[in-house]
C-alpha cells in the first residue's frame, strides 16, 4: 500500500495522464462488452425475424464501436506512455536529488553498487510495471463487473452460474497468488546469490587460475546454481497452477451454461441470441480474472523494486545545516575538544577517543599512525563529513555544527585518500574547485601541485580524462586532485595520504609550494616521515588516541612509535636520503 502511495506521489503532473489512460481503458472495455448485446439482437431480431434492417443497423453500430475502441486505444497508448515515463523520470530525479543530501555515513549505509541499481534497474522495473500493468489492471476488474452486469441484464437466472463460479475462482487464484508472491522474494535472493558467486569468481579469476582451483569454484557454483533451479521450480510450479484452475473454471461454466441455457431455451424462457451472447461472456469474465491474477504476480515482482527505491528516499540525511547557520569561516584555526567518534551507534569501540588538538591558523600539521589508528576519520571531522559522537570540533572558533555545510566545505578542502577524477577534460575536472576560475588560475594551481610538468603531455587543460581519471598515472592523478582542491582557495587544506604515488622529489617540491600559501592551515596525513618532518607539529595517532604530539626533533627524542617509524624508513632508504 505504501508502494501505491509512493507511485501516486511521484506521478506528480503526470497524474492527469494516468487518470486519462485509466478512463480510456475503462471506456474501451465497456464498448467491447457492449458488442455481444448487439450480436444478440442481430440473432434474435435479425435472423429469427428475418429483419435485414436490424442486422445492418447493428452491424454499423459494431463498426462504430470498433472505430471508437481504436481511438480510445491509441489515446491510451499515448497517455500511459507519458505517465509511465514521467513516473520513471520523477522517481529517478527524486532519488538522485535526495542522494545529494546524503552524508558520508548515509553513503556508507548503501554500498555503491546497490545505489546504482536502485537508481537504474529498479526504477526501470517500476516504470515497466506501470506500462504493461495499467491496462490489465483496469481492464480486468471493469470487464469482470461489466460482464456480470450485462450477463444479469440478458438473463438473471442463467447469470446465477457466475455467482457460483466467480467467487470460487477468485478464492482459488488468490490463494495461488498469495503463495507465489512471497516466493518471488526468495527467488530473487537465490538469483542474487548466483550473481554474487559469479562476480566473486570473475574478480578473482587470476587467483583461481594461479591456484588451479577451476574445479573447486565450479563445485561452489553448482551449489548456488542448483539452489536457484530448485527455488525457481518450486515457485513456478505453484504459479502455473493458475492455468488449469482458470481453464477448469471456464470449461465448467461453459458446460453449466450449455446445460441450463439449453433447458431454458427448450422451456422457452431464453432466446437463442441471448444464449449465444451469454457464451461470449464466459470467456470475458474468466479472462478478466486471469488478467487480475497475472497483474498481481507481476506487481509482486515490482513491489521489491518499489521497496528498494523507497528505502533510498526514506533514508534521513544524518547531517544538515542548522537553522540560522554561520556562512563565514573567519580563519583557519582548528580545535579538537575531547573528541570521541564511532561510525555506528552500536559499535563496541570508539574509532577516536578523547582527542584534544589545537591547530593555529596558517600552521602545518602532520598526522602519522598505523592502519586503523583513526587518521582519516580525524581529518574528515574537520569538514563535518561525519559528526562527532562526543566533544566538539571547532573551525575558526565556531563549532563545525554551527556552520552552513556548503560554506564550511568551501573553506575546508579535503583531498580524500580514495580520490577520483571524472570523465571529461582536465579543465572540467578542475572547475569542480572553482567554476569561475580562469585558465591562468587553473594553470597556477597546477603549478603549485606540480601537475604542470605533465599537463602538456596529456593535452593541457583540454586533455581528456577517462572515467576515474584513466589516462594519467596514479601520481599524476593525485597531483591533479591537489590542484583541484587548491582552486577552492580554502582556509584549511587537508591532504589525506595524497602524495603516496608521487616520487620523493616532486613530493618535496609540492610541500615547498604549499608551505608558501599564507594563512592556509595544512593538515597532512602521510606514511612517509619525510612528508611531515618539516611540519610545525606532528601528531602520532595510535588506536584512536593521540599518542604524542610535537616537532620532529621532539618526537625523535621522546616517542618510541615515531622513532620506530623513522628508523624503519630511513634504515631502508625510503626517506630518500641516500646520497
Amino acid at each position: 500500500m505504501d508502494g501505491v502511495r509512493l507511485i501516486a506521489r511521484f506521478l506528480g503532473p503526470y497524474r492527469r495522464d494516468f487518470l486519462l489512460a485509466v478512463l480510456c481503458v475503462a471506456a474501451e472495455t465497456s464498448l467491447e462488452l457492449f458488442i455481444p448485446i448487439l450480436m444478440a439482437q442481430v440473432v434474435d431480431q435479425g435472423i429469427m425475424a428475418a429483419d435485414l434492417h436490424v442486422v445492418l443497423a447493428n452491424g454499423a453500430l459494431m463498426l462504430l464501436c470498433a472505430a471508437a475502441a481504436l481511438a480510445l486505444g491509441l489515446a491510451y497508448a499515448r497517455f500511459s506512455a507519458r505517465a509511465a515515463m514521467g513516473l520513471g523520470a520523477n522517481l529517478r530525479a527524486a532519488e538522485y536529488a535526495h542522494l545529494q543530501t546524503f552524508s558520508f555515513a548515509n553513503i556508507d549505509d548503501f554500498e555503491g553498487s546497490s545505489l546504482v541499481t536502485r537508481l537504474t534497474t529498479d526504477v526501470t522495473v517500476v516504470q515497466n510495471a506501470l506500462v504493461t500493468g495499467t491496462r490489465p489492471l483496469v481492464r480486468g476488474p471493469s470487464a469482470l463487473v461489466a460482464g456480470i452486469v450485462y450477463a444479469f441484464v440478458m438473463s438473471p437466472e442463467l447469470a446465477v452460474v457466475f455467482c457460483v463460479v466467480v467467487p470460487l475462482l477468485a478464492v482459488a487464484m488468490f490463494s495461488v497468488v498469495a503463495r507465489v508472491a512471497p516466493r518471488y522474494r526468495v527467488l530473487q535472493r537465490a538469483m542474487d546469490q548466483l550473481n554474487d558467486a559469479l562476480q566473486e569468481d570473475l574478480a578473482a579469476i587470476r587467483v583461481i587460475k594461479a591456484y588451479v582451483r577451476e574445479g573447486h569454484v565450479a563445485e561452489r557454483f553448482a551449489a548456488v546454481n542448483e539452489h536457484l533451479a530448485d527455488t525457481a521450480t518450486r515457485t513456478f510450479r505453484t504459479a502455473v497452477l493458475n492455468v488449469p484452475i482458470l481453464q477448469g473454471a471456464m470449461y465448467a461454466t461453459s458446460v453449466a451454461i450449455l446445460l441450463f441455457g439449453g433447458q431454458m431455451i427448450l422451456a422457452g424462457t431464453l432466446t437463442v441470441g441471448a444464449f449465444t451472447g451469454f457464451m461470449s461472456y464466459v470467456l470475458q469474465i474468466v479472462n478478466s480474472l486471469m488478467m487480475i491474477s497475472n497483474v498481481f504476480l507481476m506487481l509482486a515482482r515490482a513491489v521489491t523494486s518499489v521497496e528498494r527505491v523507497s528505502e533510498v528516499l526514506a533514508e534521513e540525511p544524518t547531517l544538515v545545516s542548522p537553522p540560522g547557520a554561520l556562512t563565514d569561516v573567519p580563519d583557519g584555526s582548528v580545535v579538537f575538544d575531547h573528541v570521541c567518534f564511532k561510525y555506528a551507534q552500536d559499535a563496541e569501540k570508539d574509532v577516536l577517543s578523547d582527542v584534544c588538538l589545537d591547530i593555529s591558523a596558517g600552521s602545518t600539521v602532520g598526522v602519522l599512525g598505523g592502519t586503523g589508528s583513526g587518521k582519516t576519520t580525524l581529518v574528515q571531522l574537520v569538514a563535518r563529513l561525519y559528526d562527532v559522537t562526543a566533544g566538539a570540533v571547532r573551525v575558526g572558533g565556531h563549532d563545525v555544527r554551527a556552520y552552513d555545510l556548503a560554506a564550511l566545505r568551501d573553506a575546508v578542502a579535503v583531498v580524500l585518500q580514495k580520490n577520483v577524477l571524472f570523465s571529461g577534460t582536465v579543465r572540467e575536472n578542475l572547475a569542480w574547485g572553482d567554476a569561475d576560475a580562469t585558465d591562468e588560475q587553473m594553470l597556477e594551481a597546477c603549478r603549485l601541485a606540480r601537475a604542470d610538468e605533465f599537463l602538456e603531455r596529456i593535452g593541457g587543460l583540454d586533455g581528456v580524462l577517462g572515467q576515474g581519471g584513466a589516462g594519467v598515472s596514479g601520481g599524476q592523478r593525485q597531483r591533479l586532485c591537489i590542484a583541484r582542491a587548491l582552486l577552492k582557495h580554502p582556509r584549511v587544506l587537508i591532504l589525506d595520504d595524497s602524495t603516496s604515488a608521487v616520487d620523493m622529489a616532486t613530493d618535496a617540491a609540492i610541500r615547498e609550494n604549499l608551505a608558501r600559501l599564507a594563512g592556509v592551515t595544512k593538515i597532512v596525513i602521510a606514511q612517509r616521515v619525510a612528508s611531515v618532518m618539516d611540519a610545525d607539529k606532528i601528531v602520532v595517532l595510535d588506536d584512536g588516541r593521540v599518542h604524542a604530539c610535537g616537532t620532529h626533533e621532539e618526537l625523535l627524542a621522546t616517542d618510541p612509535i615515531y622513532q620506530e617509524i623513522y628508523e624503519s624508513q630511513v634504515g631502508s632508504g625510503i626517506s630518500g636520503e641516500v646520497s
Partner: protein
Amino acid sequence: MPARGNAAPSRPHDLLATLRELLSYMSHARWLMLAVAVLVTLAGLANLLGTYMIKPVVNAVGEGDQAAFARGVAVAAVIYVVGVASAAGYTQLMVRAAQRVVFDVRRDLFAHIERLPLSFFDRARHGDVMSYFTNDVDTVSEALNNSFANLVQAAVQIVGTLVLLLVLDWRLTLVTIACDAAIALYVRFSGGRSSRFFSRQQAELAGLDGYVEEMIAGQKVVKVFNHEDANVARFSELNERLRAAGTTAQSYAATMVPVTVCVGYVNYAIVCVLGALLAVRGLTDVGSLASYLVFVRQAAAPLNQFTQQGNFLLTALAGAERIFSVMRLAPEVDEGEVRLVHADDVEAARAAAGAAGWAWEICGEHVPLQGDVQFYHVDFGYEEGQTVLADLSLYAKPGQKIAFVGSTGAGKTTITNLINRFYEVRSGVITYDGIDVRDIEKASLRRSLGIVLQDTHLFAGTIADNIRFGKLDATDEQVRAAARLACADGFISRLPRGYDTPVVADGANLSQGQRQLLAIARAAVADPPVLILDEATSSIDTRTEALIQRGMDALMAGRTVFVIAHRLSTVRNADAIMVLEHGRIVERGTHEELLAARGEYWQLWTGAKELD
C-alpha cells in the same frame, strides 16, 4: 537492460544453428519435452472441440431434440475434463523441463568460462560476462517457461480454428483470414519503426546509467566539493532526454494492442452481419453462426499470442546465441605431458622429491625439482602488432631472488604472467628445470608456482577457508603453520572468532595489510618451489609493511623468487635486479652494481624518477 515484452527483439544472426544447439540442450529433458508437446496439443484440441460442441447443442435445442442435447453437453464435458487434465500436466512438466535445461546451460557456461584464457577476461568487462548469466540465460529461461508451450498451443489453435472455421462456413472464413493478414502486415510494418525508437531509448538509458555509475562511485568527492547542485542539473538534463525518448518508444509500441483489437472488432462485425444475411437466406444455420462467433472472438487470442511469443522466442534465441558463442570460444591450450607432483600427494615421489617436496614425473620416473627458470629471447604482446616484451632473456638459478623494477607498462607483470602460462609467448622459450613450460601439464605447473598478487581477492568463507584455498586438503595445523610463517597468526588470533571469522565481500572487514598477510599465508600453505610476488602499491602503514616484509622473507627462504617491486626497499637484497623499460631489460645487476653504474636504477633510487 531491455524491458521484456515491449523492447524490440534483438534478432539472432544464425537462427538455425542456435536453435539446433538449444534443442540439443532441450534433449537433456527429451521425454519431459515430448510429454509436454503431446499434452499441449491435447489441451489445445480440447479447447477447440469444446467450442465446436456449441453448434450441435444449439441446433439440438433449436430442433427440440432432448436426447441429442444431453449427448452434446456430455461430450463437451468429457472433452473439457481431458483439456484441464492436460493443461495441469503440461504446465507442471514444463516448469521442470525448463529449469533442468537452464541449470545445464548455466553449469556448462560457467565451466567453460573458467577454462577460457586470461586474454578473454582482459577484453570482456565483468558486466558483460555477468549479463550472459543474468539477461541472456533469463530470456532463455522465460522463453522455455512460457513461450514454448504457448507457441505450440497457439499454433495448434490457429490451425485448428482455421480448419473448424472452414468446416463451419468457408465464406465467413475468408473474412477472418483477410483480417488476420491485415494484422500480420501491421505487425511487420510497425516492427521496424518500433525498434528504431527503442534503440534510441536504450542509448539514452545507457548514457544515464553511465553517468549515475560514475558519479555515485565518486559521491564522496561530490560532497567535498559542494558539487551536488551542478550534478543534479546535469542529471536532470539526461533524465529528461530519456523520458522524452522513452515516451515516444512506448507510445508507439502500445499502438499494437488497439490496432489488433480494432481489426478483431471489424472482423466480428462483418462476420456477424454476413452470417446473419446468410442465415436469413437459409445458407447457414444459427448453431454454426453461434459457434463461429465464439471462435472468431477466440481466434484473435492465439494469433496475438503467436506474434508476442514469437518475439519473446526470437529475443531468447538471440540470448542463446550470445551464450553459445561464448561456449564456442577456444579454452586454454594444454598439451603438456610432464607432470609435477608434491611428495604429500604421491607416495612414489616422496623419496625422489627430497627436501624440496616436489618432483617431476616423467614416464613414471620421479626426478627432484630444482626450481631453475630461464627465458630465451622471449617476445610477447597482448594483442596483434603490440610488443610488450622484446627479446627478453634471463635466468633464475634455484633459490635465487630476481627483482623487476620499472615504470607502469614496462612489462614487469607480463613477465610473471608468462612463466605460469596465463599467456603464451609469441616467440622464444621459457624453461623450467630445462623443460619447455609448454610441455608441462598446466595444472601442475601452476600448482608449483606460488603467486601473491597485488589484488589479494579473498573469497566469502572463513579465514581458514581462504588460507586453505592454496591447498584444499590442508589440515588445521598446516593452515596455522602457514599463517605463522606469513606473520598472519597474530592478527587472526586477535579476531573474535579466530580462524573461523567469516570474511565478507572480498575482505571488506579486513584492512589492506591484513588481506595482504592472508594472501601470503595462502601461498605458504601450498608450499611452492617457485614464488611470484607482486607487491601491493596501495599505502600500508610502515608497521604493517614491516610485518608483511617479515612474512614475505620467511616465505621466500629456500625458493626461487620473482619480485615485482613497487618499493625499492624490498629489492635491495635481491640476487639480481632487472630494470625494465618498454619491454626491454635496460639494466641488470645487484643493488650495489646498479648504484655504481649511475643509470636508470640510480635515478629511481634517488627519487629523481617516479616508480610505479
